[in-house]
């Protein structure tokens, strides 16, 4: 039980976590010139040009929208699963997470098959003599992909917080004369807030940084912040700009984590996803 046993790990993390992040920061704050790289904020100021702000705005908009849909769908689901409508709760939760274990790309690809012009949904709709649905390669398809991929991240933390609420507290509120709406608004919801906050972060962060969903379901011309970073590194080769966007992303994530820990307090028992 010696402390030296973590030395390989420390060396590893220094080399593969700390140094790479420092390199990202370095590239973000420098631009190439004839005399080598010089310090500059140009990469950041460039991000505030309208075309890039539009990309950021679209990413935030889609991420917020899909997070809200996940919350609206997920909160009732978590409540129902905590309640007594079902008996085998752990099996139910397992059923909820099994699809998450399917390869992420295959899950997203599956929606291609469903949403295609001659895909499953349209075949079904025309068999029922309903109008066809053509949303592939639009915002709606991207949001659908995000909701589909990230919904369990919303349900899991809310479920885990709700299942820990003391039943006596709810009964006490009822005994003291609160109707069920009031019990929910004044007791259950405030107590479940840590789960809601962590659910929101767990959906919002991957939704904000995805580039696969937008690439596959949004079509080639569809750009989110994730796609922008990918392009800078793999197509344009502008590491400085790509790094600057990454730094901005890290700051956004840190900000949302700060908000999250503010709401959650010290003793969070929600599993770090």
């Amino acid at each position, binding site marked *: 039980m010696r402390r030296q046993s973590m030395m390989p790990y420390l060396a590893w993390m220094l080399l593969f976590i700390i140094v790479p992040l420092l390199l990202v920061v370095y590239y973000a704050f420098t631009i190439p010139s004839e005399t080598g790289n010089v310090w500059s904020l140009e990469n950041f100021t460039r991000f505030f040009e309208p075309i890039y702000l539009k990309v950021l705005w679209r990413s935030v908009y889609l991420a917020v929208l899909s997070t809200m849909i996940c919350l609206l769908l997920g909160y009732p689901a978590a409540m129902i699963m905590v309640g007594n409508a079902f008996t085998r709760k752990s099996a139910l939760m397992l059923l909820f997470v099994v699809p998450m274990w399917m*390869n992420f790309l*295959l899950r997203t690809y599956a929606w291609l098959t469903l949403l*295609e012009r*001659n895909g499953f949904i349209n075949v079904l709709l025309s068999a029922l003599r309903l109008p066809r649905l053509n949303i592939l390669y639009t915002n709606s398809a991207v949001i659908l992909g995000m909701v589909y991929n990230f919904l369990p991240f919303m349900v899991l933390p809310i479920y885990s917080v709700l299942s820990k609420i003391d039943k006596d507290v709810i009964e006490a509120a009822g005994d003291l004369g609160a109707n069920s709406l009031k019990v929910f608004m004044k007791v259950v919801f405030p107590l479940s807030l840590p789960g809601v906050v962590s659910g929101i972060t767990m959906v919002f*962060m991957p939704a904000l940084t995805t580039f696969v969903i937008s690439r596959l379901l949004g079509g080639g011309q569809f750009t989110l912040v994730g796609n922008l970073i990918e392009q800078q590194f793999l197509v344009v080769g502008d590491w400085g700009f790509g790094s600057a966007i990454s730094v901005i992303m890290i700051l956004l994530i840190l900000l949302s984590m700060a908000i999250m820990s503010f709401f959650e307090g010290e003793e969070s028992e929600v599993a770090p996803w």
Partner: protein
Amino acid sequence: MVRFLKRSYIYLLFVFLYMPIAVLMVYSFNDSRSRGTWGGFTLKWYGSLFRDRTIMSSLYSTLIIGVSAALIATVIGTMAAIGIHNSRGFLKKLIMNITYIPVLNPKIVTAISLMILFVFARVRLGYLTLLLAHITFNIPYVILSVLPKLRQLNKHLYEAALDLGSTPAQALWKVIIPEIMPGIITGMLLAFTLSIDDFVVSFFTTGSGVSTLSITIFSMARQGINPKINALSTIMFVFVLALLIIVNVRQARDEKKERNGKIGAKKQVSPYALEFGDS
């Protein structure tokens, strides 16, 4: 009535979650190439899947990298967990925070930062860089699986072993490691699953010629729909399902043991609640 509505709501969500996978699986047996029509049952897509050189070689790479990354990450991570468990105060906090970086960072940032490192250090992108990258994002999950087991461990076990005349190394190997083995195995399985599921990090840290399954699926999916992917999905889903069942059975067994044995057992990181936001 309310109960019925509640149940229907959950069932509808399950339809939403499972329909895409089910449709993929059904179409993998469809003789007609177009999704709209059912051309009869066939296994031909499975045949052409196994004959596809690109898919087979990327499957091979995925498995090689998954297994080696999981093994190496398990060794480093378990050692790290033992060290972290025995350190205190600021140092411990600092190390735990560093451990959380790859877990919390957007995958794409981890990916590009590693890519920058490798290109900067002039390491040729390929098998080696893929392996290093996978080990890096796997280690934290191993640590987070092993640490709770260490916390449950009786402090005096190690001392007792020493008192009874074993060397520190013997005490570690014969007493501590067997006690925390369930956590180590869970961590290793998790690491392996994360490795085979990863797309983003692999996409940025691989070089020409080396491709994992996820990367191959991505490039195939960009060209549209391909029944071979459906067949592949079916196989992967069944495989992952089997793995998941093994992990969960193991965990249920551990929990049962805990309930019968030790008091004050801390919550285990549940592997099925972990992040798959591999976007």
